[in-house]
């Protein structure tokens, strides 16, 4: 289970982990069937003195069933995979809920800048708080992020959110998340961006509303 490897810190992390379970059940069931059949055939039809191979063309109806039936079942499973993938995708990437707050995320070689709304709760005003490599969020609030790049491609990835979005110079890409778990977690750059790609680390700090107020009061220090 993915949540045993790393926490689910966004509202949609559990959906993605559930999709992982659904896919895993389908995938490893078919994998076990195919490998099981494969190894059984290898053992059953190993070379034995005096036992010749059979002449089978592949047009025998009773044998073709072993291909056509799994074939049809795989199409059914594919429909489940597609439906699951699309519904998660729709919630994470297509259907952006109304935000409580908005943050700007600016990627450049090789640092992340974050512009947070100040005490007024609005972005692009005088009291915005700008930080480097340090994203500060409030637990339970829904955020929009506006992602830009100053130079090359980067990718804004927060594994505990199960979220990733490439940053493209010349564009502003909007996405969303709702943090649901306090703590400090990694942000990674997930797109090759040059010599410093490996050190383009940042972290996200998720606080309760009260703690966040205290952080705001310090002016972001």
């Amino acid at each position, binding site marked *: 289970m*993915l949540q045993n*490897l*790393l926490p689910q810190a966004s509202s949609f992390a559990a*959906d*993605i982990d559930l999709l*992982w379970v659904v*896919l895993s059940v389908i*995938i*490893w069931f078919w*994998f076990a069937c*195919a490998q099981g059949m*494969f190894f059984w*055939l*290898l053992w059953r*039809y190993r*070379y034995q003195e005096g*036992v*010749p*191979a059979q*002449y*089978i*063309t*592949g047009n025998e109806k009773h*044998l*073709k069933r072993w*291909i056509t039936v799994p*074939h049809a079942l795989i199409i059914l499973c*594919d429909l489940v*995979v597609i439906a699951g*993938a*699309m519904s*998660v*995708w729709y919630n*994470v*990437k*297509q259907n952006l809920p109304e935000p409580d707050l908005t943050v700007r995320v600016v990627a450049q070689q090789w640092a992340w800048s974050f512009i947070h709304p100040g005490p007024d709760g609005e972005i692009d005003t005088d009291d915005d708080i700008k930080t480097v490599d340090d994203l500060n969020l409030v637990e339970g609030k829904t955020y929009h992020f506006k992602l830009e790049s100053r130079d*090359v*491609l980067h*990718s804004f990835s927060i*594994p505990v959110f*199960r979220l*990733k*979005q*490439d940053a*493209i*110079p*010349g*564009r502003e*890409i909007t996405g969303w998340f709702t943090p649901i778990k306090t703590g400090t*977690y990694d942000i*990674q*750059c*997930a797109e*090759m*961006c*040059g*010599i410093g*790609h*490996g*050190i383009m680390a940042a972290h996200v700090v998720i606080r309760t509303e009260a703690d966040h107020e205290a952080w705001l009061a310090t002016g972001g220090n």
Partner: protein
Amino acid sequence: MSEAVKIDGAHGHDDHHHHEPTFLEKWIFPLDHKFIGMQYLFTGMFMALFGGFFVYAFRMQLAFPGMSVPGYGTVSPAEYNMLITNHGSVMIFWVAMPVLIAAFGNFLIPLMIGADDMVFPKLNRLSFQLFLTSVLILMASWFVEGGGFGGAWTSYPPLSADSNYSMTPLGSSLWLTAVAVEFAAFLVGGINFITTAMNSRAPGMKAQDVPMTVWMICLASILFMASVGPLIAGAIMLFFDQMVGTGFFDPRRGGDPILWQHLFWFFGHPEVYVVLLPACGFVADVITVFARKKLFGYQTILYTAIGTGSLSFFVWAHHQFIAGIDPRMANIFTVTTVLISIPIAEMMFLFIATLYGGSIRFTVPMLWALAFIAEFLIGGVTGIYLGASGMDIYFHDTYFVIAHFHYTFFPIAFIGTFTALTFWFPKMFGRMMNETLGKVHFWGTVIPLNTIFIPLFFLGAAGQHRRIYNYNHFPDLSTPDLQNLRIMATMSLLVLLAFQAVFLFNFFYSMIAGEKASANPWKSNTLEWTTSSPPPHGNWHPDDMPKVYRGPYEYSVPGREDDYWPQNEPA
């Protein structure tokens, strides 16, 4: 098209019958398809040494960050990027492509269809010369000022387009030139394969009498020809961006960096099937011989290959789900990507079904062919996670992707190659390889293969991204558990690399001192086994060219004393 059509003037054999080819004519500038195949084979094997050395250096860095890697030294971040970039480029473009398609395509196609050579031997020679040029350009790129290109094998602009960003002004341009020249080489070669298979088949050889290997290499060549155009165009545009100052991919000048991704992956995904299909062809030919069975559903396998190849043109954007394309597009490409599982799963099922009712002999080539099926299945099924757009949000660009595609590419490029090489070695060099050493090499490769890549699935699932030279910068990823997985993968790699020495010894020793091979040591049906091992120049005596009376997989036909029935034997 059952009759062979000869194209006059293209052969040049008449000249050669008058005198023995000199060393220069035979080995340096050969026209004979067998020697051109060997040139490709040895060049590919030579390049694999570099691909292997690169992965050794950067895996050591990942397991023991900051250590001085024996035989390499300390790996700097810039060098790390260069190593991963060139490991990928070399293994795909300079190992898998030349060996699977060019080496075996050249060696096998004329022999398997009963022709004396390719229809365009001089184009064939040109193809190799272009390829060799690309090798030299690529190798030069590693040693120029600024170092080799480090922008990943996908070479995404603006990083790759502007040396202010990449800091490898010469490395990027030489890398790109090498890739473009290499594509030209395979275009020329592919034209030859397709034309030869269409026109030079032995009398009586109908489409359904053509061995799978030939079919698959031709289908791969068609896929390559149909997909490579956009990438060559893209490469030229990128080259202009680098050298002339155009802005095709530069947003500051109205360009679009995502355009490159479309051009690259429109080629890049079919490319997977370009190398997959030949490996599937080898597997089909080898399992039929050693199970002494007719291929289960010859036509269906062909249709699944064509279906997979056609669908592969409509899946490219699954590499770009989170790249900033319109999110609605992801839905379309999820459907096409998941659909591709149907034909390819069916092909694997048909291979497995071929084993039913067989009399299976576990020779070394058969072990490799079976391992291909078992291991490729892992690569195939894990692709479904990544094709499912919702899941890819998390898995994209993590080690899960690395583990997935190595479970496809390793079976294709290495297990597929070892299948073919151990099977056709007697025909190529006239001697048998050592079975015991072959089995030692087999288990010494297949076991560590799994212990390398299974840990990487877990690392990817834990959120570890690709192309990062030291995970100590990320607190969540610096735990001892995760580091142990990295060390396990690296140690397994060392074991795997060490066992390749067994192969190299067996390969070269058997070439000189192996047991002499008869014309048909595996009791196989296809035409290449009807001539001597190794075949003479012109493949058969000109008065004794083979004629074809039946399909390639008539094994264990009831009522016959022998359990095989060569294609050229009159009924």
